[in-house]
């Protein structure tokens, strides 16, 4: 121990600095600070006090919930006070995230995924307004929060807070615990926007003493519905691929623990579990444990008794009540609602699942797949963590060990040390929309890397991690290929009529088929002609949502009574349609709406459509009752207007 050095260096400078920031805030805001609570209009000033130039700032936002109010507030700080921020955030989703760079409040960015902002991001990078540190996978970026990208300030979002700062993050907990953990325990500032302040939160997701300030946002935070895939858009071809996957991979390996990507290909699998998989006698043998968001498409499989547990990255709008009613399946708090956790679920998907399956846009002849397209910087998200062999895994399972045995035969010489292997499956129709081939000689990712100055092409899943490729033409088991030439022919052998597929060597492909490297539908005893949407456990959102109707009520005051007496009904409760019943009611001039809808989670859309309708007609002393069957807003507005016309027509008669 070298005592004098203690005198030479202070070891609590971050703590001291934090205190200085808080003092600045207290002196500037004075009694506008109510304990931890700050009013919405004071937030910009608060940010100017607690953020210093060059800070590493995490603005919470992933592909679901967004700290949108704080994001907007940050764009309004004075760039002469707050500048050169280094943003570290999982998803660049909102326009404000990039406004920060245009306004020169921030200059550097480390992130995982950019989704809808991908094109603008690419432009800003080209204009040198943004310096990208790196594009990460989720777990990678989260890991760096605890190593070299620890946020100095975290701007997060929660459902509600109590005056002590305890936060309730509810079903959409997602990234919040991880961000707060990294920030609060390294003397950082944590500011939370909340939808409401309550005297007591339903449950404590984040303890109050980890939170510096809380602000009630003027509007609830935005949550993006992500995982609802309308089964009406699933094709017969996707049903065929799903049948082959279930029989040729899930049943074959006994896949009990898994993760699905999002998309119609995997939604088709989910919807075939209670029908096709059930008919194969696979209940209890496959698909028992999931790391997965609460996809509505999984409801039939849950109801059919296939699914035993699901841990979720995030939640899904409209699924809250369904989840709360099934605590045996989902991870829920004592308040009844779910607690998701993106970091833990990513970890679960990486280490505790035996299979990942997802769609992609392009696959090359080595089996590398990429979703990168020119002129956009989309990033990675979580798929690479799911779709990679877990080299650190040590526990055995039937599927993992069998895949390990197959992989050990790769290139013809078997390893002596047994080892397991994660199944990583790419499922894709050989042609995408507009007849774009999914199989290519060279990924667009190469050009993307060149144009954006990336150190390496953005590959979503590397070929050496992929174990199977499923197309409408069959399944290629890449683990059984003995040489790289064979591997190339195995990929060509399922690439259909794409240029890559047409270039196959027919003899080699037939030989691979004889060896079971390539398996066609008929090799699996599947009659391709039998693949039909009829087999899906649900064929529309309505079918899925049908098991839980939502009842909505609205009331608008200040309408004018039109004196009609005869009730009218227009429309029909057919699929994608609705009926509107309009009748006189004594309501003190108000207009009351009662809506039953199977499309859960669209309350805000309904409210907007109904508000506009009321503004158009200002009907009073009228009750309007609606039985909806999945109608679009345009249909709803049309039927409402038709109902008013009929109703007024009656009154004039």
């Amino acid at each position, binding site marked *: 121990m070298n005592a004098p050095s203690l005198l030479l260096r202070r070891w609590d400078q971050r703590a001291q600095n934090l205190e200085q920031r808080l003092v600045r805030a207290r002196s500037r805001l004075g009694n506008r600070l109510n304990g931890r609570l700050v009013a919405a209009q004071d937030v910009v000033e608060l940010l100017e006090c607690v953020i210093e130039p060059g800070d590493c700032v995490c603005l919470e936002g992933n592909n679901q919930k967004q700290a949108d109010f704080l994001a907007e507030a940050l764009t309004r700080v004075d760039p002469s006070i707050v500048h050169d921020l280094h943003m570290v955030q999982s998803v660049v989703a909102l326009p404000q995230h990039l406004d920060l760079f245009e306004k020169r409040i921030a200059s550097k960015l480390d992130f995982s995924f950019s989704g809808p902002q991908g094109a603008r991001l690419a432009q800003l990078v080209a204009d040198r307004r943004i310096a990208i540190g790196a594009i990460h996978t989720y777990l990678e970026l989260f890991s760096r929060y605890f190593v070299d990208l620890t946020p100095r300030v975290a701007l997060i979002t929660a459902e509600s807070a109590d005056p002590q700062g305890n936060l309730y993050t509810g079903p959409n907990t997602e990234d919040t615990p991880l961000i707060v953990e990294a920030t609060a325990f390294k003397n950082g500032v944590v500011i939370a926007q909340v939808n409401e302040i309550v005297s007591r939160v339903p449950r404590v997701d984040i303890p109050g003493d980890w939170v510096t300030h809380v602000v009630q946002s003027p509007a609830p935070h935005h949550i993006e519905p992500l995982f609802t895939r309308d089964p009406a858009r699933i094709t017969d071809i996707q049903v065929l691929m799903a049948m082959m996957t279930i029989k040729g991979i899930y049943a074959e390996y006994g896949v009990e623990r898994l993760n699905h990507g999002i998309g119609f290909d995997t939604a088709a699998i989910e919807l075939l579990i209670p029908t096709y998989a059930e008919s194969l006698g696979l209940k209890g043998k496959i698909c028992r444990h999931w790391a997965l968001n609460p996809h509505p498409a999984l409801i039939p499989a849950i109801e059919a008794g296939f699914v035993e547990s699901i841990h979720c990255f995030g939640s899904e709008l409209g699924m809250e009540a369904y989840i709360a009613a099934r605590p045996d399946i989902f991870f829920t708090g004592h308040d009844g609602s779910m607690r998701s956790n993106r970091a833990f679920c990513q970890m679960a998907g990486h280490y505790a699942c035996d299979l990942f399956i997802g769609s992609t846009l392009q696959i090359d002849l080595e089996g590398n797949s990429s979703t990168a397209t020119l002129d956009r910087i989309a990033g990675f998200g979580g798929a690479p963590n799911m779709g990679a062999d877990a080299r650190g895994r040590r526990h055995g399972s039937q599927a993992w060990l069998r895949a390990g045995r197959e992989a050990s035969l790769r290139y013809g010489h078997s390893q002596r040390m047994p080892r397991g292997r994660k199944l990583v499956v790419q499922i894709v129709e050989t042609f995408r929309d507009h007849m774009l081939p999914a199989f290519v000689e060279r990924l667009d990712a190469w050009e993307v890397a060149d144009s954006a100055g990336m150190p390496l092409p953005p590959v979503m899943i590397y070929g050496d991690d992929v174990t199977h490729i499923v197309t409408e033409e069959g399944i290629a088991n890449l683990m059984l290929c003995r040489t790289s030439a064979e591997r190339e022919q195995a990929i060509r052998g399922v690439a259909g009529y794409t240029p890559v597929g047409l270039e196959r060597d027919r003899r080699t492909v037939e030989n691979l088929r004889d060896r079971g490297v390539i398996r066609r539908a008929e090799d699996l005893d599947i009659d391709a002609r039998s693949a039909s949407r009829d087999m899906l456990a649900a064929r529309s959102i309505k079918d899925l949502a049908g098991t839980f109707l939502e009842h909505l009520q609205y009331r608008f005051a200040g309408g004018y009574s039109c004196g009609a007496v005869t009730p009218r009904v227009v429309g*029909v409760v057919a699929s994608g349609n609705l009926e509107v019943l309009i009748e006189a009611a004594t309501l003190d001039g108000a207009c009351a709406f009662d809506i039953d809808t199977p499309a859960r989670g669209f309350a805000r859309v309904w409210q907007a459509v109904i508000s506009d309708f009321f503004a158009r007609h200002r009907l009073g002393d009228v009750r309007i009752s609606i039985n909806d069957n999945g109608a679009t807003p345009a249909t709803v507005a049309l039927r409402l207007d038709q109902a008013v016309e009929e109703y007024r027509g009656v009154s004039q008669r």
Partner: protein
Amino acid sequence: MRHRSFYEATARQRIVEILDAHSFAELVGPEQRTVSPHMQALQLPVAFDDGVVVGRGTLHTKPVLIAAQEGGFVGGAVGEVHGAKIVGLLERARRERPAAALLLIDSGGVRLHEANAGLIAVSEIIRAILAARSDGVTIIAAIGGASGCFGGMGIAAACCSAVVMSEEGRLALSGPEVIETAHGVEEFDSRDRALVWRTMGGKHRYLLEDCDVLVDGDMEGFRAGIAAAMEAPQSLTLEALEREQAMLARRLQIFSSSRDGRDVWRTLGWPNPETVPLVPTDVFLAQAAALRAA
């Protein structure tokens, strides 16, 4: 004025256009919210009229009672409430003795979501039709909607005094999908629309005399066809049933080896059975009349 399609119209639109203008008065209307308790229990969307509109009005100034099934709501299938409304209308007919009770059928049959209750409801409709006919009420079934007339409603239609159909109408006991599910696509390819039509469509039913009046698929065609059917009342008597039985026995003898509508039509004397689906209704009816006369 353009011709409005019966096939595409809703139940309410059909009633308005079939009956004399402004003559319709609904019974137990949607404001009474007689929704299906069984659908509610399953948390499925309900309809305020449970998919059937019933009431009274006039047709060519003659008083009629009318029920119209809404094929868009659960395929027009019959549940407890839906069935009870039709049964009530037929009981009313026994008392009021209208010129006719009109059933605009657009239904896949029993509403499976109501299972046993749906099956019983269809049975009660069949019984109510027969009881009303025994009392001398004329009951006309009109078939031309997208959901057709299937299952127990196919039996119900055959119990009515007369059946009016359009070419697009389908009348059968088992739906094509049910047959395909039971015996495979080789037995009956439900996606082969032409085959479905040749087996249960309006023209085939007319040629076999399971349909009494074949009409064009517009509202005016149905209005005229129903009015015509009302002019030829059929009573439910032992003698009438004996004649029907003899006719059906003959049908079995003549067509027992027929496998397709085209075989049947050829046997009936159509020189080019392939053309039957193509000829317009008026030409078809004229040819059919000539063949019957011959």
